[in-house]
C-alpha cells in the first residue's frame, strides 16, 4: 500500500489528532506552571516570562511548532467533524446519546470551538501586543512588565467571566480528549486505569487552576 494512502486513512488522522492534542496538553501544562507562579511571586513570573519571550529557541523553534500544532488540531477537528457528520446523512428522529456516552465525548466540537474562540481572544489580548511590542515597534526590553500586563487583563469582570467559562469548556474537552488520545495511539492495557485517573485529574486541576489564577488576580488587584 502506498504511503500516501496511509496518511489519508481514518486511523492515521485519528493518531495525528491524538498526537497534536497530547502536544497541546504538554504546552498547557507548562503554561499553567508559569502562570501559577504569578500567584506566589511576581518576580519569578516576570523572569520566566522574560526567558520564554526572548529565548531564540523558544521563539523561533518551539513557538512556530506550537502554532502549527494548534492550527493543525483545529483544522483537523473541523474536517473530521464534517466527514463524520456526512457518514450519517439522515439523522435519528429520536437519539438517546446520554445512555451510552458522556456529553464531553459527544461534543468535542462544541468545547473545541469555544476554546478556539477563547484562543483568538487570548491572542488578541496577549500574543498580538507581545509580537507588536517585540518585533514591530521593537520596544526596549523590560523584564518586569509581564506581571502587570497579566494583572490588568483580569480587572474586567466580563473578561474574567468569559475566561473562566472557556476554561470550563476546556476542562470538558480535556476530560474526554486526554484519555482518548491514549486509546487512539493504541495504548490500552493494565496501566490504562491509572493513566485514566491521571487524565481526569489533569482535566480538572489545570483548567480550574487557570480559573483560580484569573479570579485571584481579579479580586487582588
Amino acid at each position, binding site marked *: 500500500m502506498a504511503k500516501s494512502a496511509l496518511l489519508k486513512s481514518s486511523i492515521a488522522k485519528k493518531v495525528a489528532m491524538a498526537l497534536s492534542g497530547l502536544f497541546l496538553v504538554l504546552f498547557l501544562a507548562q503554561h499553567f506552571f508559569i502562570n501559577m507562579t504569578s500567584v506566589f511571586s511576581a518576580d519569578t513570573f516576570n523572569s520566566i516570562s522574560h526567558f520564554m519571550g526572548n529565548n531564540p529557541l523558544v521563539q523561533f523553534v518551539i513557538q512556530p511548532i506550537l502554532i502549527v500544532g494548534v492550527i493543525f488540531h483545529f483544522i483537523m477537528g473541523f474536517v473530521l467533524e464534517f466527514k463524520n*457528520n456526512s457518514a450519517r446523512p439522515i439523522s435519528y428522529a429520536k437519539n438517546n446519546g446520554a445512555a451510552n456516552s458522556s456529553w464531553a465525548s459527544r461534543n468535542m466540537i462544541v468545547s473545541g470551538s469555544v476554546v478556539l474562540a477563547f484562543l483568538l481572544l487570548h491572542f488578541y489580548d496577549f500574543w498580538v501586543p507581545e509580537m507588536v511590542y517585540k518585533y514591530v515597534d521593537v520596544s526596549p526590553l523590560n523584564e518586569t512588565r509581564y506581571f502587570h500586563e497579566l494583572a490588568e487583563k483580569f480587572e474586567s469582570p466580563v473578561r474574567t467571566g468569559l475566561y473562566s467559562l472557556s476554561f470550563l469548556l476546556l476542562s470538558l474537552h480535556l476530560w474526554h480528549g486526554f484519555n482518548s488520545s491514549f486509546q487512539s495511539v493504541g495504548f490500552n492495557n493494565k496501566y490504562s486505569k491509572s493513566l485514566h485517573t491521571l487524565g481526569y485529574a489533569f482535566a480538572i486541576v489545570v483548567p480550574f487552576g487557570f480559573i483560580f489564577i484569573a479570579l485571584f488576580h481579579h479580586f487582588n488587584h
Partner: protein
Amino acid sequence: MAPCHSTFDFRLYDFQTKNMKLTLKIWRQKNAAAEGKIVEYPIDGIEPDMSFLEMLDILNDELIVKGEDTVAFDHDCREGICGMCSLYINGEAHGPDRLVTTCQLHMRKFKDGDTIFIEPFRAKAFPVIKDLVVDRSSFDRIQQSGGFISVNTSGNTIDANTIPIPKHDADRAFDAATCIGCGACVASCKNSSAMLFVSAKVSQFALLPQGKVEAADRVLNMVAQMDAEGFGNCTNTGACEVECPKGISLENIARMNREYLSASLKG
C-alpha cells in the same frame, strides 16, 4: 381469556396476563429510492412477556387484516446470535436493555402508555432497503478484504494440538470473535464508525499465532476497505461498547490502532 390481537389470531394456550397499550412511531420507507417518514401506530393488548419482535409480529398481522403493507424488519434466529435483527429503539441500538439484541428485548422493559420510536440503523454505509431493513453488505466487504487466515480448506493441515495457545490469549481471541456483525456499533456511534466491528476481527487473529503471519496486511486492507465504505472516524466516545449486544471491548480498537501503526511503520 387473553385479548384478541387480530381476527385471525391463533392461540395455543389461554393466559391471564397484564396488557399494555403503546404508541409506536415507526420509520416507513417504501424502498431505497423513496423518501421515508415516521408513521404512528397505536397498539393494544401487548403482554410484558412478549419479545419486542413478537410485538411487531402482532402489529403486522393487524396491518395485513386491514389491507395495509406490513412493516419490514430484519430478523432470523430470534435468540440473539445471528445478528440479523437491528432496530434503533427509543434512541438506542437494540433498545434500552443491555447485552441483548432486539429479538431478546422483552416488553417488560416498557410501561403501559409508552411511546416507542422505532428507526432503522442509520449510516451512509447502511442504506435503507425498506422500512427498518438496511443493507449491511459493507460489513461483508470489509471481511472479504482480509478477515481470514489464508489456509487451504481442502487439504490436510498439522494436528490441532501442535499449536499450543495460552488460555488467556485464546479466551481473549474468543471474546473478540463473539461479534455478531449486527451493526449496533455503527448505529450508536455519533460518527457512524465501524471501528469496533473491524477491530474485533483484527484482534481475534492478532491474538492467535495462526493469525500473526498475515497480521500486517490484514489490518491495512481491512481499514482501507472500512474507509472506502464511507464509515465515519472513531472519536472514542465509547457508545459502541455500551450498546454492543455481545459486550465487545474498546480494548480491541486500541489493539487495532496499534496493529495499524506498526504495520504502517513497517511499510
